[in-house]
């Protein structure tokens, strides 16, 4: 079970309104909960618990289930958003299979997943271990917490705003990055970072890494808190170097957190719409388009609604598959 210590702390009984601190575990004092002194009649006709699910369930039906079914149905039609959709069977999907633009957007998404999931997880792992086991021990937990907060900060930024910040820093003329390169005599490295089709994707990836690193870092640091310190001490006494401890103690111990971070970030990377919209609008010449953006383009720019729905459905299926993997793993963890 991968429940973190914090959850346990948060859900453990604080003090109920009437019972003065039920000491952890044993039966709570059977003193009456005299909320307002009124003696309640002993009705045992209780509201069924299922009734509590009704408001949430109806909302789920209206906002998620029905629209998702509609989207899937639309993916089997040709429709421009007005008039009646025309049923075309699987035509949209066969067209997708042959659509080079779609496949290109898919390849870009692999790069995006690298930048939003794989790289931040790897860097985050090293950083978390270093902060926890090195900085924290030698400079105190406050230093570690401060550094963690600095690295986490971009995570709180709306992606649209992060995009504005960066597209201005990366601007070809009078952008801060080019100015910085000029100032240190590296004019040769100045680029049109987002406008050059060969570089745009890498620039976008750089921004994503900057935004994303804080997320795995924070997860790993909290995961490390439940690792038995004796393991580290034993390794240290054995003379194991920092790297050896990292490989043989840290990584195996927080494997559940690594898995969760990687999976959540991968799912997020398939929904990279906001980054792309603000930074490049999929350009130049489709060089940074991802399926998430491609479906939006089909819906609202070229109004090929059926086709856009097919793209979105494929995206949804991939994410559902990833979620299933996550749930399987989760339930296995609970048993073992």
């Amino acid at each position: 079970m991968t429940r973190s210590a914090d959850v346990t702390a948060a859900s453990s009984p604080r003090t109920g309104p009437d019972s003065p601190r039920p000491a952890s575990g044993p039966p709570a004092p059977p003193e009456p909960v005299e909320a307002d002194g009124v003696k309640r009649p002993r009705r045992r006709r209780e509201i069924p618990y299922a009734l509590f699910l009704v408001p949430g369930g109806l909302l789920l039906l209206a906002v998620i289930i029905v629209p998702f079914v509609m989207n899937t149905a639309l993916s089997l039609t040709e429709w421009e958003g007005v008039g009646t959709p025309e049923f075309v069977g699987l035509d949209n999907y066969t067209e997708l299979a042959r659509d080079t633009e779609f496949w290109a957007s898919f390849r870009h998404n692999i790069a995006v997943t690298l930048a939003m999931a794989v790289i931040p997880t790897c860097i985050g792992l090293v950083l978390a271990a270093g902060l926890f086991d090195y900085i924290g021990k030698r400079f105190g937990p406050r230093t570690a917490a401060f550094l963690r907060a600095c690295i986490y900060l971009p995570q709180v930024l709306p992606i649209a705003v992060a995009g504005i910040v960066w597209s201005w820093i990366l601007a070809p003329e009078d952008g801060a990055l080019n100015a910085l390169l000029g100032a240190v005599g590296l004019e040769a490295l100045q680029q049109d970072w987002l406008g050059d089709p060969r570089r745009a994707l890498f620039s976008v990836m750089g921004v994503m890494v900057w935004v994303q690193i804080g997320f795995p870092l924070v997860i790993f640091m909290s995961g490390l808190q439940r690792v038995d310190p004796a393991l580290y001490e034993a390794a240290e006494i054995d003379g194991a170097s920092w790297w050896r401890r990292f490989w043989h103690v840290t990584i195996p111990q927080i494997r559940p957190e690594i898995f969760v971070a990687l999976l959540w970030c991968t799912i997020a990377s398939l929904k990279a719409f906001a980054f792309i919209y603000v930074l490049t609008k999929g350009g130049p010449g489709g060089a940074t388009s991802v399926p998430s953006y491609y479906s939006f383009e089909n819906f609202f720019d070229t109004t090929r609604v059926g086709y856009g729905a097919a793209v979105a459905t494929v995206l949804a299926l991939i994410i559902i598959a990833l979620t299933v993997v996550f749930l399987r793993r989760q339930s296995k963890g609970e048993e073992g």
Partner: protein
Amino acid sequence: MATPQAGARRYGPGRYAVLTAYLVLAVMMLVPFAIVLLNAIKTPREYSTNGPLALPEGVYLDGLIDFWQRVDYGEKLLNSVLISGSVAVLAVVLSVLNAYALGIGRVKGRMWILVLFLMANTLPQEALVYPLYYLAKQVGLYDTRLSVIIVFTCIQTAFGTYLLSSVLSGFPREILEAARIDGANRLQVLLRVVVPVSRPTLSVLLVFFFIWTWNEFLIPLVFLVSNETQTVSVALGVLQGQRLMDATMTSASALLGVLPTIAFFVIFQRTLTRGITVGAIK
């Protein structure tokens, strides 16, 4: 990553090399914020002659004020607060109701219901946005803040239900039993026992729902087309997309976009870094 030499004393000078590396990284993470601040208070002329890296000659706030007035930023802030605040409160309420039935009531088939809720949260909004857009138009909710509130209440509730259900399934049974013996019915148990006891978790959820909704982009972008309804993210994103802003105006807009976030971060720093573990590991 410097490796502490095995033979060296535990607190050798190498530790400062590691600390320096971390400080450099922290500075790199913060530099974009500093550059934004630096340039948002420059005059356009200063910017074009001295470039983006020079220190400002003085504090020039007209750019910020000008931008604020031009986009009616106060209105955007109000919209964002209204939408995110309503969503946070409503989603916490619905999450509690759902989780009560699933985690404490152990309703039949709860595993499948939970899976459904988690799926609803991870499902890409791309696969919902067009039908939602169409439906909103049909029922006359298109371009209203209410439509966005409804949609995100549902999306956040889906996550909250998943998280809270497992938290509540570990709720101490003795406390529940005691309340039942005293004759409290299910609703009373929920309101007088479960909610007060789980308040810490609920407040973490509240903060998260607020910030997540604040940061949302795709669905607000599609739904909120008129100036009067737009959120901060949407208004800034759309302006950016039109590429009409000059450099100082862009930095003014970036600063105004960043400031509320920094404020949240300062206020909720501990909740955020602690709470994310609640959110992710579950």
